[in-house]
């Protein structure tokens, strides 16, 4: 990682000015050995998290959930119910924490905002012509502004994968910078869509690109392509935020999204966060799960731990 240690903070902020500088920097990052990264992720998956540690992990995971619905069939009624669940995931147990955020399409933001008003649950909206990002920049920015104006305090944007894969890094960079600006005070999560980037080297480069351009979070996936979040991809992204903070002093969050359905999976991710970047990221401000069905599994496991018995799915709300 010579490129990062030798570069001072000011050097990195200049990188976005030229295509050549960006390319040189991104291609100078150390490679990722696929076999090794996957092996490390698999090894971390063998940790055994039991009893008190499990209880602690489940509550933390609930607080990290971005409870998500991103369907063409979403209606005001549907998203209101989801927002209600975000506030009180387990109506039977007031000690159960609320989730991190609700994540919806921009058109649904006003309805969710009504329900969440005054609460600590964040309101995230996807934007920038999610999920493909294949729209003119002006439209993507208008999409973003509309979501913020309607009450979103977190924006989940998609990067321009076409430009990234074609090697037009500056174009990707400029779009993120512009979206960041359009987001105003809202937190910007940058979706890399790692399933389409395919290689871990690309994931590492896209992670750095998103961070250099000002992203507050880097997020794996839209959940709309066949390959969503995986452990090794998230590992590479965690290494990137760790190295980025070391180089610049700025901390960036990570959000794996899509395909994380069970408590067991969520705990594996938390172990990986713990042993890769440490406790600084074990907080909903710095790590989130983009998920929907995960929450009910967390609630079922939580009830099992507190009562000693498994309750059937009928005891948990379907929203």
């Amino acid at each position: 990682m010579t490129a990062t240690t030798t570069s001072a903070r000011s050097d990195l902020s200049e990188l976005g000015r030229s295509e050549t500088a960006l390319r040189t920097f991104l291609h100078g990052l150390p490679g990722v050995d696929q076999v090794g990264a996957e092996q490390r992720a698999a090894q971390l998956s063998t940790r055994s998290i039991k009893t008190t540690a499990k209880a602690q992990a489940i509550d933390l995971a609930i607080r990290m959930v971005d409870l998500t619905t991103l369907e063409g069939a979403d209606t005001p009624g549907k998203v209101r119910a989801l927002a209600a669940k975000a506030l009180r995931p387990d109506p039977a147990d007031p000690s159960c924490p609320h989730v991190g955020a609700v994540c919806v399409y921009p058109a649904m933001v006003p309805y969710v905002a009504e329900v969440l008003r005054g609460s600590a649950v964040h309101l995230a909206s996807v934007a920038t012509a999610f999920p493909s990002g294949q729209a003119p920049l002006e439209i993507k920015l208008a999409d973003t502004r509309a979501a913020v104006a309607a009450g979103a305090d977190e924006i989940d944007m998609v990067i321009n994968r076409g430009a990234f894969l074609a090697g037009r890094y500056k174009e990707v960079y400029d779009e993120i910078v512009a979206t960041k600006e359009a987001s105003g005070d809202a937190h910007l999560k940058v979706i890399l869509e790692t399933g389409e980037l395919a290689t871990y080297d690309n994931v590492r480069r896209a992670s750095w690109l998103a961070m250099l351009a000002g992203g507050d979070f880097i997020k794996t996936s839209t959940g709309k392509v066949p390959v969503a979040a995986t452990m090794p991809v998230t590992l590479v992204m965690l290494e990137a935020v760790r190295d980025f903070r070391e180089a610049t002093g700025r901390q960036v969050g990570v959000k794996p999204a899509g395909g994380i359905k069970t408590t067991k999976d969520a705990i594996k991710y938390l172990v990986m966060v713990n042993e890769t970047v440490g406790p600084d990221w074990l907080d909903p401000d710095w790590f989130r799960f983009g998920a929907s069905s995960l929450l009910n599994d967390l609630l079922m496991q939580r009830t099992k731990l507190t009562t000693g018995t498994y309750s059937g799915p009928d005891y948990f709300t379907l929203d």
Partner: protein
Amino acid sequence: MFEYAPAPESRSVVDLKPSYGLFIDGKFVDPADGGSFKSINPASEEVLAEIAEAGSEDVERAVRAARKAYDKVWGPMSGRDRAKYLYRIARLIQERSRELAVLESLDNGKPIRESRDVDLPLVAAHFFYYAGWADKLEHAGFGPRPQPIGVAAQVIPWNFPLLMLAWKIAPALAAGNTVVLKPAETTPLTALLFAEICQQAELPAGVVNILTGAGDTGRALVEHAGVDKVAFTGSTDVGRAIARSVAGTRKKLTLELGGKAANIVFDDAPIDQAVEGIVNGIFFNQGHVCCAGSRLLVQENVADRVLESLKRRMAQLRVGDPLDKNTDVGAINSAAQLERIRELSDAGSAEGAERWSPPCDLPDRGFWFAPTIFTGVTQAHRIAREEIFGPVLSVLTFRTPAEAVEKANNTPYGLSAGIWTDKGSRILWMADRLRAGVVWANTFNKFDPTSPFGGFKESGYGREGGRHGLEGYLNV
């Protein structure tokens, strides 16, 4: 903070007897002179069982039983039928793998994560692999009708007790030999459980004999005139003594001895994975690995960065109870080994190398040594030359590929080496020049029954594993 609660693997799966006899001719028997010793749990110093100590009379009995089984049953048996027994043993090992893994961790001190995920799967894989060869020996490239040698005397070390047993017994039996095996005196228990598995598999009596004991037992065994083949894994000193004792006899000999492997990291390496490889190379199995990457050769222009990452990673290593499923580094196998590690580490400090260990609480009872690295090490330091056989890494730097090769080869040993670079052509260039039996590229400590393993120079001769591993057990 996210503290992992204790996650102990249950001991109840293991049924330990208070004492164990010798396994001769298919039965557990008392030693002729009644001698015994104790096997302890190195993590707690608790006595696990009383173990019989075989004397020369017992060696005589065992070799005779092995000879009889060779002449009457195993030698004449078709390869296809031998394979049936080996497959049966392999399946029983899989079925009883949890029991074997727990027992291995109890007796050896290695973390259950490793005995469960590395040792036991490899043990079963070795038996499956060599079972497949038993009826195909004429296609192994050693002539049309390769013949077994006879009775094999096998002496194995304490670092991978059951895995080394598998490396020795599986190819010997597949090739049609019978064996007398002596496990190390600090780790005899899984070999004795393996003897029970042989009974369970109804392996003909005398094909496998297990003699427990220390150095005297081993010497009596390898020097016995009725032995046709000697296979030894252990220290270079003992290996030399064995080579002297079999010189001038008809005995065939294979030796797998010590190592001081270089793990070479170039500036274009995938750093995060290289750091994992360095950790796996030296802290796997507490560094009790003959092919451990005990010398880190790192290109000087990335040395600071690599060391910083390595220290951060080492701080995550969980040292403690071997039976806790989250333990990464277990107990040192014996007081004697701990003493040796301490002595060499102290020599490292005294000779001016800079010592570093992450903060870690070590248990009060048992034998423990914190993961340690020495920086500023040169080729002239003892810790760069002598095998420590513990969780101690010596870090040296180099400037050019040629210098890396020169330093890597500048050792009397030659068992293994590792290369970390993104450049494929450099891997091949290096591998051509490294005088080591195994060269790993962008990985370390990877084992597979299909892959031959063995040393150059004072790391021994002969190969174990793969087609090559049959050669030591065949008259070719």
